[in-house]
C-alpha cells in the first residue's frame, strides 16, 4: 500500500497499490528482468525551495521521482533497464475557480518531463480525465491494473 506522498519498493510476490488517486499520480519504476519495482504516490508537481518541506521529498514529482529511481536501484534494479508506468492526474472537482483544477495536469506533465530527463522509457500511461483511480502494480508480471469508479478496469 502506497499512501499519499509515500514511496515503496516491492519484489514478487508482493503487489504495490495506491488507492483513490485523484489529482495525484501513481508512478511505477521497474526492472522488467529482475522485477524489482517501486511506486511513488505524487501529490504535487514541484517542490518549491522556500516552503521548507524538504523533509518530505516524496510528496513531489520532482524530486520524488529521483528518490524513487535511487531506491529501486538500491534494491537491485539495473539503471539501464528501468521502465516506467504511470496513472492518475485527474481533474476530479470541476470548477473554474478551483486552483486544484490544474494540479492533476501539472502532476502529469512534471512526472513525464522528469522521466524524460532521467531517460526512463514510459511503457504505459493512463493520465488525466475526470475520474479517480485505484492502481495496483504486480512486479511479477510487470503489470499495472487500473480501477476506475466510472469506466471500469483497465491494464497497462
Amino acid at each position, binding site marked *: 500500500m502506497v*499512501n*499519499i*506522498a*509515500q514511496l515503496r519498493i516491492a519484489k514478487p510476490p508482493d503487489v504495490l497499490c495506491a*488507492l*483513490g*488517486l*485523484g*489529482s*495525484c499520480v501513481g508512478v511505477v519504476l521497474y526492472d522488467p528482468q529482475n522485477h524489482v519495482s517501486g511506486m511513488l504516490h505524487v*501529490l*504535487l508537481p514541484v517542490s518549491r525551495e522556500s*516552503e*521548507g*518541506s524538504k*523533509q*518530505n521529498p516524496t*510528496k513531489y514529482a520532482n524530486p520524488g521521482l529521483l528518490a524513487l529511481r535511487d531506491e529501486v536501484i538500491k534494491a537491485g534494479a539495473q539503471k539501464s533497464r528501468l521502465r516506467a508506468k504511470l496513472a492518475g492526474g*485527474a481533474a*476530479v*472537482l*470541476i*470548477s473554474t*475557480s*478551483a*486552483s*486544484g483544477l490544474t*494540479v492533476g495536469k501539472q502532476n502529469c506533465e512534471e512526472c513525464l518531463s522528469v522521466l524524460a530527463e532521467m531517460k526512463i522509457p514510459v511503457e504505459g500511461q493512463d493520465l488525466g480525465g475526470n*475520474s*479517480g*483511480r*485505484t492502481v495496483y502494480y504486480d512486479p511479477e508480471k510487470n503489470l499495472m491494473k487500473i480501477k476506475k*469508479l*466510472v469506466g471500469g478496469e483497465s491494464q497497462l
Partner: protein
Amino acid sequence: MYGTNNDRCDEAVRGDGQLEKSEEFDAAKQDILREIANIGAGHASSALSMLLESPVKQDVPEVKLVPLDALTEMLGGAERVVVSVAMQLSGSIEGYLMAVLDLDQAGHIVELIRSQPLEPAADGVFFSPMDESALKEAINITGGSYLTAISQMTGLELVPTAPFATLDMLGAVLSIALVQAGLEGDSVLYFKSGLFNREKNVSGDLLLIPDQKSYRTLLQSLGCI
C-alpha cells in the same frame, strides 16, 4: 482503528514540522477549535433542519491534526465511494469546506428536499441536473451557515465559491483539499462534524480543511497566539 489513528495524531503533534510542534497544537487549542466547529455545526444543523423540516442533530465535532496520508483513512479509506459537495474558501481563511456523503444518502437528501423520487439521470452521471442542483443548494445553505457562524465568532472573512459536486473515491475528492493544505506542510488540520436525523435516516459529514496559514490566522483571531 481509532486507536491507531489517535497514535498517528500524537505522532504528528510530536513531529518536527512547523505546525506539528506541540506548543502549536496543544489540547487547549484543540478544545477552542472544537468549540468553533461545534458552534459552526450548530448553525449548519439548524439550517438543514429547516430544509428537511425535521430536527437535525450533530455529533461531537472532531478537530485533528494528522499526517497527509492519514486523513483519508480516518474518513473511511481512500476507496470509499462518496458524493462530495465542496466549496473553496478565499478571504482571511483559505481552504475547503466540503460535505461528504454516501451516494444513497445524497440521493435520500435530494428526495426529501424535493419531496419527490430522484429523476432518472443521463448516462455517466448520477443525478439529473435539477437533483444535483438541489443537493448543491442544500450544502450551500448548510455550509454557508457553518461559515457565517465561524465568521461572526472570529471576525474573519470567509468567502466560499459556488459549490461543486462530484461522485468519486474519497481519496480522489480529498486530494484536491490535500493539495492546498499540503503546499506548506506535511500535516493537515481538519474539522469534522457529523450531522444526522434518525427519523428521516439522514447522515453526512461536513469537513473544513483550512490551509496552514489560515490555521494561524484562525488561532490569532481567537487570541490564542
